[in-house]
């Protein structure tokens, strides 16, 4: 049953990267650089401005990455500190399981 649930539209090892914080120059570049240097392919980017905050969501494929999700989270958090925003990454299954039946 788990396999079935995961199969629906799951391709590769996808993570969802979220960025929340005040908008400034170089946020996308900074995040993209961390992902690229870890061998992670960006599949989709969507962003919006909520009040004065930038909210950005990236869907990325980790299947070719040598890093695990914990390491990636640490590296993204460090980059976030540098850019003054909060960056986090979570496995796609978590969102799919919570919001889709």
């Amino acid at each position: 049953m788990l396999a079935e649930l995961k199969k629906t539209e799951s391709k590769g090892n996808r993570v969802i990267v979220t960025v929340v914080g005040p908008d400034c120059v170089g946020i996308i570049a900074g995040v993209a650089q961390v992902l690229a240097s870890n061998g992670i392919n960006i599949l989709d980017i969507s962003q919006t401005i909520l009040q004065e905050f930038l909210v950005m969501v990236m869907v990325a494929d980790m299947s070719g990455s040598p890093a695990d999700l914990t390491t990636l989270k640490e590296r993204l958090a460090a980059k976030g500190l540098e850019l003054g925003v909060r960056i986090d990454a979570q496995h796609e299954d978590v969102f799919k399981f919570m919001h889709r039946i």
Partner: protein
Amino acid sequence: MLTLQEIMETIKMVQEENLDIRTITMGISLRDCAGPDSRQTRTKIYDKITRLAGQLVKTGEQIEREYGLPIVNKRISVTPMALVAESSVKGDMVDFARTMDDAAAAVGVNFIGGYSALVHKGFTGADHRLIDSIPEALDVTTRVCSSVNVATTHAGINMDAVYRMGQIIKKTAERTADRDGLGCAKLVVFANVPEDNPFMAGAFHGIGEPECVINVGVSGPGVVKKAVETVKGAGFGVLAETIKKTAFKITRMGELVGRTAAERLGVPFGIVDISLAPTPAIGDSVAEILEAMGIEICGTHGTTAALALLNDAVKKGGAMASSYVGGLSGAFIPLSEDAGMIRAAEAGALSLEKLEAMTCVCSVGLDMIAVPGDTPAETIAAIIADEAAIGMINKKTTAVRMIPAVGKKVGDYVEYGGLLGRAPVIPVKPFSPADFVRRGGRIPAPIQGLTN
């Protein structure tokens, strides 16, 4: 495709509202370890636990990393030890607790449950030996948790066991007085105990359970509280609906983690326990959910109704989210582990009597409650009997985990830190139930038990 709102909702739950998986608990049957030689039996127990649970912590941590969801505890429950040790007539019962402790330490879990006996209708020889050894067992071990079932709807209440447990709780408090009676925090007296509960201290692996199983306990009072805050002033229909939807989402996380863990460990997936389990962390409180619903302070009039609504809505949402719901599955109201409950008790709003009323509509019972050290064993036994009666008549689980705080009076505190928290010592009635408790025998099964 997921929407931006859905993604941000999940992120917020984990980052700001303390959504986590409270425990993945591996249940292990030890029935095949029993034998006449105590040493041989204990070797088998140690080997089996370390063999089956060897990868539990590692697998849990792996899932944590992969999904980015905290899994707070990895634990083990085993067959009630009175059943396993029954054939080993010679030797000290406490040695079995030591073996459990050693095995738990070897695999790196913080608690192992199952130093237990089921005596709702009467005692066997091993039940007596195990119960008598509880104060010492909880003193000399650090990870072992103990539970005793003294009543069921079908058997009635074993009042001899109730009285005995009143004495055992007192003794356990005295033996661990240097640690604020910590032994009592690891000892639960049950009525209608579930066989697949993943939460400590009451977890054990029931006799109807398979060889090995993974059960999961979710958490998330913080998430529910935030959701309730968004519908301030709305009608009860809206309130119940909001809690239901939130419980659904929380439970889905438990289902995901449980199934993944079971698959990786190569054992069957048992149940998700959808209990709302508070922690002492700010905002992770069941009392604060009730307060967000409009109760000025937990324990005042209206609290029982609010809790009933909360408990029911959590069950309805949770039941839809998981294919197998089990264990205790209700809101927990442990006094020492919930910052809002502690505040309410300090303010005088929350009393033992109100807590007892609240246990009629939620799981699980009078939990982590400190009472004055000079409370007689008969009074503690009577408190257990009251809770057991509520469980027996209402066909639900109830429990008592009570700490008679040695040398302390009302207004003092017992302090444990960590998940066990701190509890203010609250008053009990000074009038004696001793003549009632000492009658001996069994309260007959109620008419509710005659269902065939």
